[in-house]
């Protein structure tokens, strides 16, 4: 958790987390494309790390997070072990889901991360329900649900946010808006004045933030989360960012207008911006380089260790389906 108020230490922590997320995903992409060790699709969040680092900085382990198919960054920032995550991406034993979920279903209940989701928008109602459960049980932690801009065009957006509104649940919905729904520009298929206005129409207080500015995300989400902890109702945060890679690691993203990615990345890369901010605060270039090198070294080791881990035992194909009528007893 960040200390309250602004200081260089907090700014540095944000950079460390963003560098770790990026290094994790760069190595995940290497594992997919160079090593052919990640067999399924992965959806990198490279370029979107500010949201993960800035929001998660305010959560405790007991707070709850739900995320999307593009959820590595959120999960790591919530406190998951990168080795267990990488093993999951490689489908190995010791993966956070035992190798049975993969990238799109990554979850670590031990740190309050109740799952990414392979179905766009599906976690919105589930997250509202987690907050509902917390309220019924009289507990005092909060829920954060992060989803993409594309999810705002699915039904659960209406049903889940309305639910949180009418039951006054302790939840922050974050729309991490990378401006694309897979290969389609979300604006071209979305009516009305935008996602924050939709949330406001359902009774939520909605805040807009520059989703490439980790400092701003941390500041704004800190204020919102403090209100939630103080018993305030559900809120909505709209953070606009940009996806540096294609939709999946294998997508060359040729549907983007010429020059768009180059221009956006040059102007808005959250890691470059955070480095510049730290330099301006007086941190030395050597310190910044050290943070980068340490993150890269950590994730290189993680990938190496994950690749050396065996696949799960065959029986795992039948485990954890159900207690009654389990395929462990009879699968056919």
């Amino acid at each position, binding site marked *: 958790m960040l200390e309250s108020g602004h200081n260089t230490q907090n700014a540095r922590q944000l950079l460390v987390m963003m560098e770790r997320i990026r290094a994790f995903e760069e190595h995940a992409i290497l594992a997919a494309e160079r090593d052919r060790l990640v067999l399924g699709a992965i959806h990198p969040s490279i370029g979107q790390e500010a949201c993960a680092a800035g929001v998660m900085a305010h959560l405790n382990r007991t707070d709850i997070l739900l995320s999307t198919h593009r959820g590595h960054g959120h999960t790591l920032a919530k406190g998951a072990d990168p080795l267990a995550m990488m093993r999951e991406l490689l489908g190995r034993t010791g993966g956070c*889901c035992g190798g049975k979920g993969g990238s799109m279903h990554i979850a670590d209940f031990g740190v309050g991360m109740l799952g990414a989701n392979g179905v766009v928008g599906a976690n919105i109602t*589930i997250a*509202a*329900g987690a907050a*509902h459960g917390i309220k019924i049980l009289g507990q005092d932690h909060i829920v954060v649900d992060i989803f993409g801009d594309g999810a705002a065009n699915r039904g659960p957006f209406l049903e*889940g946010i309305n639910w949180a509104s009418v039951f006054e649940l302790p939840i922050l919905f974050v729309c991490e808006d990378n401006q694309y729904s897979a290969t389609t520009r979300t604006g071209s298929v979305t009516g009305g004045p935008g996602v924050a206005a939709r949330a406001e129409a359902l009774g939520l207080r909605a805040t807009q933030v520059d989703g490439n500015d980790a400092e701003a995300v941390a500041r704004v989400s800190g204020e919102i989360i403090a209100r939630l902890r103080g018993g305030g109702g559900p809120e909505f945060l709209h953070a606009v960012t940009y996806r540096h890679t294609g939709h999946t690691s294998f997508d060359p993203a040729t549907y983007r207008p010429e020059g768009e990615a180059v221009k956006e990345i040059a102007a808005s890369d959250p890691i470059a911006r955070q480095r510049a901010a730290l330099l301006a605060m007086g941190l030395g270039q050597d310190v910044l380089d050290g943070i980068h090198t340490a993150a890269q070294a950590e994730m290189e080791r993680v990938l190496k260790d994950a690749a050396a881990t065996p696949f799960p035992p065959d029986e795992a194909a039948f485990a954890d*389906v159900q207690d009654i009528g389990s395929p462990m007893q009879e699968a056919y």
Partner: protein
Amino acid sequence: MVMMTYIEAARLAVQQAMAADETVWCVGEDLGRGGVFGQYLGLQVEFGKDRIVDTPISEAAIMGAAFGAAMVGTRPIVEMRFSDFALCATDELVNQIAKARFMFGGQSRAPMVIRKPVGLWRSSAAQHSQSLESWYAHIPGLVVLCPSTPQDNYSMMKAAIACDDPVVYLEHKNIWGLEGEVDTSLEVEIGAASRRRKGEDVTIVSWSNTANLAVEAAETLAGQGIGAEVIDLRALWPWDKQMVLASVRKTGRLVVAHEAVRVGGFGAEVVATVAEHAGDALKGPVRRLGAPRSLVAYAPNLEDKMRVTADMIVTAAKETLMGAAGK
């Protein structure tokens, strides 16, 4: 033993479970006023609005939110009003609830009872009459229950609430008022069928309200000197293969009857299992009764075209005995 109706039996089970465990709660539309059929009458007064929760008409959110609340440690009873509307929450049930425990490598549980009233209910037409139990039996991760008597609706509801797996609980809306003796000390093991009647000549396998018609048919057959054994499966997943196979080995004759559409119905699974594991014991053709693959109409004469009746079960049983070729 107390006389009560099918609807009262389940209500009593829910009331007792809620009184015993504060984490049990009910969520759905119009529950505060008792639910559309009165399944929850009086419960909001007893347990308050936070545990008998009136929701917006948001089936996906009812199912999804209940699931989220289950993952953090509550035990929701989800009311879908009519099984037909539960289709608005199919992703939540099939992609989320049924799969989470497995996908997350055993980190989560979804101890939920998902109530979906099914079946023909006079002149309710095509969107309020369906029996889709075979869909749910097809989904790994779900337990599927179809109680047909007040006793079972009491004992099976209790077992379902106590179960840590998600349970799809299909009550038949035409028998809410069906009366019967209920012994509240009787426990039912999920997956154990009930032999509603013993017989030596023909095995009739059924579930839900059709099992009641099968008992009626067996009484008629008895009057004609034919001993029909009626097996009420009660649970479609897991289902009691052992009881069915043992019975068919004894009688050598099999009729399967259900209200759902015959094509792709769960009856096909029963017949295929018998063919694989007790095919050598069959002494006559198997008969499988279900609705024609058409739609339920509003007009009563048209609706009746979709019905499996006790008379049809009687005829089918006799056909297995005569060895007549199936139509």
